[in-house]
């Protein structure tokens, strides 16, 4: 029982990373029908920005604003940086080729991905970097005597779930959200109805990367080890989560991410760690066979 509870918390934490990154994939896909390969690298870049904020002046931010103040600043800085970065990438790499069709767009996305990850390697070096021990909370919450949950894990979970709720509210309950969904359904008609396509693009290319950056900083705070190519692994998993949930569908990405994290943890904890990825991708295949549009994919499926 205790083991099960622990594995559930583990799964939810990993799942919230996947969900945050997956939401960015899904937003961009929904609006532009583009699989944004650079998204995993937004995650990495966010992580490195947070790292830089925490290590400048050998922990000046933490000393001045306190442990949690430092973390909040690292998160805000990284999210802001990546919101701007996302818009820049859209302007430089995607907008010029947007009219050329989907294939050039995908190639351009791959190019952006390689550019960002090699840029990170050039600036911060090819070796592992570690988030400073002084900037990371080391406390642990003990529940029912035997269940240990590190503070940072709890914060990760709470912040991620709150943000997901906020995004869910914006996308599903507001007029602007309706515009985003309408654009995802049919861009031409939505534009004809007076929806400003550029403002939608602005939204997905600033919020998506910012969510990725948040996940990146949390990954650094949780595991301290970061490396320039880590976005690839997270990106792949998050993309899988997007597919599981139904690509283009934002609540679907959240559900897919959390579900993927839970499945991984439970399988690894109770069956075998070595076979984890085999199992996860087997599930993906099964879901694609049974529900080709993903778990919550009906809305997108309406479109022919």
């Amino acid at each position, binding site marked *: 029982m*205790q*083991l099960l509870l*622990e*594995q559930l918390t*583990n*799964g939810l*934490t*990993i799942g919230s*990373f996947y969900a945050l990154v997956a939401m960015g994939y899904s937003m961009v896909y929904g609006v532009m029908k583009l699989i944004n390969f650079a998204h995993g690298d937004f995650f990495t870049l966010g992580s490195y920005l947070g790292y830089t904020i925490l290590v400048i002046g050998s922990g000046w931010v933490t000393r001045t604003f306190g442990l949690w103040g430092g973390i909040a600043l690292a998160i805000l800085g990284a999210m802001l940086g990546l919101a701007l970065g996302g818009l820049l990438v859209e302007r430089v790499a995607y907008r010029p080729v947007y009219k050329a069709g989907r294939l050039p767009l995908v190639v351009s996305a791959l190019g952006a991905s390689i550019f960002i990850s090699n840029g990170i*390697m050039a600036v911060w070096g*090819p*070796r*592992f970097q*570690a988030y400073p*021990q002084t900037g990371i909370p*080391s406390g*642990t919450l*003990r529940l029912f005597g*035997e269940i*240990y949950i*590190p503070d940072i894990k709890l914060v990760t979970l709470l912040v991620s779930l709150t943000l997901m709720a906020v995004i869910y509210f914006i996308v599903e309950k507001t007029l602007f959200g309706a515009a985003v969904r309408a654009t995802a359904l049919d861009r031409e008609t939505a534009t004809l109805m007076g929806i400003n396509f550029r403002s939608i693009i602005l939204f997905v290319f600033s919020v998506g990367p910012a969510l990725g950056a948040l996940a990146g900083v949390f*990954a650094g705070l*949780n*595991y*301290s*080890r970061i*490396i320039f190519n*880590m976005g690839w*692994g997270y990106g792949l998993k998050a993309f899988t989560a997007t597919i599981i949930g139904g690509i283009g569908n934002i609540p679907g990405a959240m559900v897919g991410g959390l579900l993927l994290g839970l499945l*991984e*943890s*439970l399988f*690894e*904890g109770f069956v*075998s*760690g*070595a076979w*984890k*990825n085999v199992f996860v991708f087997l599930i993906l295949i099964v879901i694609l066979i049974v529900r080709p549009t993903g778990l919550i994919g009906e809305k997108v499926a309406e479109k022919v």
Partner: protein
Amino acid sequence: MKRIPGVILVLVLTLSLALAACQPKPAEPQTIQIGLQAPLTGDFAAEGQWAVQSVEVAKELLNKKGGVLGKQIEIIVADDASNPKDSALAAQKLISQGLKAVIASYGSSVTAPAADLYDANKVVSVGYGCTAVRLTMEKQRPYFFRTSGRDDTQSEFFAKFAVEVLGAKRIAIMHDNQDYGRGVAEDAKKFLQPYIDAGQVELVYYDAITPGESDYSAVVSQIKEINPDVWFFTAYYPEAALLLKQARQAGYTGLFVGNNSVPTPEFEKIAGIDVIKGSIHLNEPMPQFLNYPESIEFMEAYKAKYNELPGSIWAVYAADALNALAAAIQKAGALDPDAIAQTMRTMTDVKGITGPLMFTERGDRKNIPYYAYIYNDQGQLELYYPK
């Protein structure tokens, strides 16, 4: 556009071939060139960098003493990016430059494809951080040697150490499903078997993790539930650091024993002092504990140049790979692969930084001792056994 008639094409091709054949032969190089294949990027980038620095220092020391065969030594570096695919490319690159002797490489699965290529092209290669048994025992590679030890030595040491010194009753063994880690784990299990049969000890966990991930909390919860006396981890430092950190956060208080690729500065940096203190690590003699005259000379030169000691023993083995090659070339009297390989097998009087450089018929280093080190409260390694 008009097509170029075939006859002219053939003529041009023949002519250019003939011209190429007439090119004067490149002049005999004025230096003794030795290759160094190292992981400069990828997961083991730190090891690669230390290896390059160590070999550089060893080269300078040798050159100061007059070099080899009266010529200065020149090192040509190729990056194998910590993976087998790029390893083959790096090997091709060094082979195509006409090298006869190379130092290659760190990591057993990375070294294997390169060793095959070097062997097929009659290039003597000396590994420095590849300890899988199969590299020398699965098939004979006449031109392959290694200055590092072999995994089964470590596994044998572990079984004896865990049961007889630590008095463990319940042991967990965790590997990463890669060549090196799985090899150590399998051998450790094999050497534990007599103790298990005698009812002295129980193997309570034997499984693998997926390398390259960040969150191991699922495995860690499992370890905590099983609560072994000794948790032996047989793979590399990035995963070891995360596992141990997450295990301590989850409330596991048992003893963590790492194998020889765990205790590095990177491990200390990622996990932090609070996490690593009290953990024990098996290793071939670590750089700071070497006390041969050759080691002291090397460490002083290294410190003067880089203001620190080499981060791991493997980098020092890379330096010793150069020492062994230089000695063998000197003794053989020529840069001839067959003569060098033959000399490597028979030489008995060459002193390296890590002790005498002697090799078996199959290319393994002779007489590598093993030690257990423990991190003290200041996060520094101390000798634990045998004292």
